[in-house]
């Protein structure tokens, strides 16, 4: 008879194992299925260092955390209800993330002496009593999988590679999810290798029936669909949303997209993604280095295409001189920086927000640029589209400042209607409408944008370059007053972008004790914290900035309405710096520079601390 099913609101599962164990695969599959049956989901893949570590070692552990709920959620969750540990190293690394009394599933077949030593365990943790505060399920995953697949013609290594699906089968059972989506995926994935289709599906089923059959689990759980606003949804990662946003901007503006890049973690997937869309006329150029990558994008922009380049911190450092050229040449250009943990090579597979000031100031001379940042995976679509719109409208390079956490995280995305996408009008110059012939630096009085005249247009032949140019004519000029004027115009042009921005959304109390001010990938943790506070009736609000340069015009007023401004950042206080100097407000920083996202409980604790100070609670 069917085992009892318990209704719960949400759950967090962490799949962890050796890089080779396929935790990322089953994590993604569980996410897909869960999203498809209507839960809200948020994920956090946690890769080991770029380079493959020895099998079974601590450094080789790869994890995938999935949080799903019948309510709206914004983070992959602080602690987990279920931890699937495929080997001792995975247990060692992730046990601290499992809630007390949480479910721990271990593959006992991998707990041989050698594995234990590799993980740095003196003796077998499964033996001693360290695990008593959890519900431990010891499963001979390898053996069971082999048994299930013995009929197949596959070699033992091949069979063992299927054990992750056995684990997935168990989890699907545990949360009452259908196997069909995964089976569909397996069939597509191994279309060319039918024997693998069979084997993986066998393993999946085996894991599922194992739970049904054995006494292991008394109950299973069900999480009802969340209520989303009507629309068509898909699950999407940040980098993929960025890819789609760029293609959309090209499609809607009619400007062919030329993406110049040089591979670097975590930006490479944007190059890989865009390279798929030649049928959209997308040109991707993998160049010899980051300088060449931005160079081709600038050249393309000069030719009248949508020039885009993308990289991460170290690459941005190299691009800075050329970006500065595009700035003074006033050409539309979109520069994507998918931040990772620095400084220098740093920790390339970990997340951080420490390039903000580099984007503001990492160029010689006075070189103001618009900077905008996405707040969550699906927001990359809208934000990068906005970057393209601003670049084209104002004829300026725009920095799209994403980060590894958003780039690799996934969540459901309500697919927009094309009609909802703002218009992007290239408005190329077609004729010289001034008495003095074509004047490449004669500006639009409203936006201060200069004309975009592409080669091939008769009568608009002109020369631009990196030397200071005289207002209107664009000829080289060393004139003192002209230089002052041009420096001011370039600053003013960026400042005016704020004129056309919508009012800033303030979540929570319109005024009160604490304003949580954030930007980028910290959105999920901050918003969840704010929601909890608001639910507790605390006078707290959350503002999340998409536009970092220029700041929204109403920001100053909003800041005035709160006793304390708390700025959580995954750096040592960069937005903090800018807010303090701009508004002369004694804002407080809450800084975590660990390559890991904020936990909601960390933020909550900080807020309590501040409330203490200002004498509440």
């Amino acid at each position, binding site marked *: 008879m069917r085992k009892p099913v318990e209704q719960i609101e949400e759950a967090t599962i962490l799949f962890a194992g050796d890089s080779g164990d396929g935790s990322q695969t089953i994590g993604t599959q569980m996410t897909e299925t869960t999203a498809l049956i209507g839960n809200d989901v948020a994920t956090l893949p946690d890769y080991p260092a770029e380079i493959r570590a020895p099998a079974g070692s601590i450094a080789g552990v790869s994890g995938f955390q999935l949080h799903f709920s019948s309510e709206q959620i914004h983070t992959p969750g602080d602690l987990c209800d279920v931890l699937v540990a495929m080997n001792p190293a995975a247990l060692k690394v992730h046990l601290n993330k499992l809630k007390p009394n949480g479910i721990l599933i271990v593959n006992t077949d991998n707990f041989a002496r050698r594995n234990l030593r590799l993980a740095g365990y003196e003796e077998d943790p499964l033996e001693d009593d360290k695990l008593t505060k959890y519900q431990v399920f010891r499963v001979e995953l390898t053996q069971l999988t082999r048994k299930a697949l013995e009929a197949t013609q596959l070699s033992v290594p091949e069979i063992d590679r299927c054990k992750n699906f056995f684990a997935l089968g168990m989890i699907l059972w545990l949360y009452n999810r259908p196997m069909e989506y995964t089976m569909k995926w397996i069939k597509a994935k191994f279309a060319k290798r039918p024997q693998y289709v069979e084997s993986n599906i066998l393993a999946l089923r085996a894991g599922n029936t194992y739970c049904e059959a054995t006494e292991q689990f008394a109950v299973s759980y069900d999480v009802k669909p969340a209520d989303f606003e009507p629309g068509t949804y898909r699950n999407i990662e940040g980098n993929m949303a960025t890819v789609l946003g760029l293609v959309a901007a090209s499609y809607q503006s009619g400007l062919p997209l030329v993406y110049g890049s040089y591979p670097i973690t975590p930006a490479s997937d944007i190059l890989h993604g865009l390279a798929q869309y030649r*049928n959209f006329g997308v*040109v991707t150029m993998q160049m010899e280095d980051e300088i060449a990558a931005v160079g081709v994008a600038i050249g*393309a922009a*000069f*030719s009248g295409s949508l*020039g885009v380049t993308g990289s991460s911190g170290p690459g941005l450092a190299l691009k800075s001189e050329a970006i500065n050229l595009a700035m003074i040449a006033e050409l539309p250009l979109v520069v994507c920086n998918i931040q990772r943990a620095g400084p220098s090579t740093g920790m390339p597979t970990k997340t951080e927000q420490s390039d903000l000031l580099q984007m503001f100031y990492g160029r010689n001379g006075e070189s103001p640029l618009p900077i905008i940042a996405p707040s969550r995976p699906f927001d990359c679509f809208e934000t990068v589209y906005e970057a393209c719109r601003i670049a084209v409208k104002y004829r300026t390079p725009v920095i799209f400042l994403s980060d590894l956490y958003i780039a690799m995280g996934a969540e459901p995305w309500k697919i927009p209607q094309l009609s909802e996408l703002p218009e992007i009008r290239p408005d190329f110059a077609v004729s010289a409408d001034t008495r003095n012939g074509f004047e490449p630096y004669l500006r639009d009085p409203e936006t201060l944008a200069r004309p975009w005249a592409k080669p091939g247009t008769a009568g608009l*032949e002109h020369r631009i370059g990196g030397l200071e140019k005289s207002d209107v004519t664009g000829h080289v000029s060393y004139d003192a007053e002209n230089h002052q004027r041009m420096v001011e115009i370039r600053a003013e042009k960026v400042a005016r972008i704020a004129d056309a921005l919508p009012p800033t959304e303030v979540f929570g109390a319109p005024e009160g004790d604490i304003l949580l001010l954030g930007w980028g990938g910290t959105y999920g943790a901050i918003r969840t914290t704010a929601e909890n506070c608001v639910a507790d009736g605390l006078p707290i609000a959350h503002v999340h900035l998409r536009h970092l340069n220029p700041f929204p015009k109403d920001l100053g007023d909003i800041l005035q309405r709160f006793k304390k401004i708390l700025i959580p950042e995954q750096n040592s206080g960069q937005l903090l710096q800018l807010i303090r100097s701009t508004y002369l407000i004694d804002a407080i920083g809450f800084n975590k520079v660990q390559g890991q996202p904020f936990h909601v409980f960390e933020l909550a604790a900080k807020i309590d601390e501040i409330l203490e100070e200002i004498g509440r609670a």
Partner: protein
Amino acid sequence: MRRKRSSRIPAGVPTLSKKDFESDQDVRWCPGCGDYSILAQTQRIMPELGIPKENIVFISGIGCSSRFPYYMNTYGFHTIHGRAPTIASGVKMANPDLSVWVITGDGDALSIGGNHFIHLMRRNFDVNVLLFNNRIYGLTKGQYSPTSEQGKQTKSTPLGSVDTPFNPISLALASGATFVARSLDRDPNHLRAIIKSAFEHKGTSFIEIYQNCNVFNDGAFFQYTEKDTKADNTVILEHNEPLVFGAERDKGIRLNGFQPEVVKTTNGEYSMDDLIVHDQYAEDTTLANFLARMSDTLDLPDPIGIFRSIRHPCYEDLMTNQIRTAKERMGEGNLEALLNDGETWTVS
């Protein structure tokens, strides 16, 4: 002559003159600089190329030579030091119909820009590169460059430079350049002819132009450019012609094994048939490499003219083909469909 993409002037439209290619900016080089001649020859040859000037783009880096685009009444971009090849690649990729010209110096192309230079060669974009080699940094007022002879005394090397110079021709050949040539600022006719062939070549065309910097490196090339010494120190390369040189054209270059030697063709011992015959269309670069090195390691005369001119597919064409075939196979991209691609679900 090979077909070019650069869209030509429709018949009937009045053809252009040198004047049409002169911009309104006054030319700023030191009096006597070799750059003036190169500019003049370029402006003179442009009308003969038969493309409207709005389809022409000159792109340069930084240096005296790199001021060039300001003086051409075409589209132009004076970019940053060493990066012209990258920007030119972007311009050409974005619009293959444009006739794209890169103007660069020995420092701009071979010092800071060395990497972009060699990668441009291997990608074979259909652009033309004019390298003004004056073997010095002119704009920064006289430091040695990667083409300066070893031991050169300059502001930055009062006791002489210690590095061995590059041979730009060898470097271009090794990088897979499909058109490689050398000409002289002081030989207007030859220079114009070479510029024209470079334009007609489909693929990256590289021309090393010996250019006199009369302020910081005066006379660097006089042995190759001046009446009295020219004939004995240079050999003019002509396809299918033997390597003959000398005021009386009585000297030739002959090969035994891989060892070349200079022979007299008049004393009966050797005839023209014994000499190396130039083949600029050879796919294999062995001969071209030999010619490139003749004057530095073998002290034979210095070759002037076209070392190599072969046809390889261009980057922009291969990329454009990928786009065309992709559209044929998958159909013109449809954004609506793309956004709704993959596993989706609908909430109503």
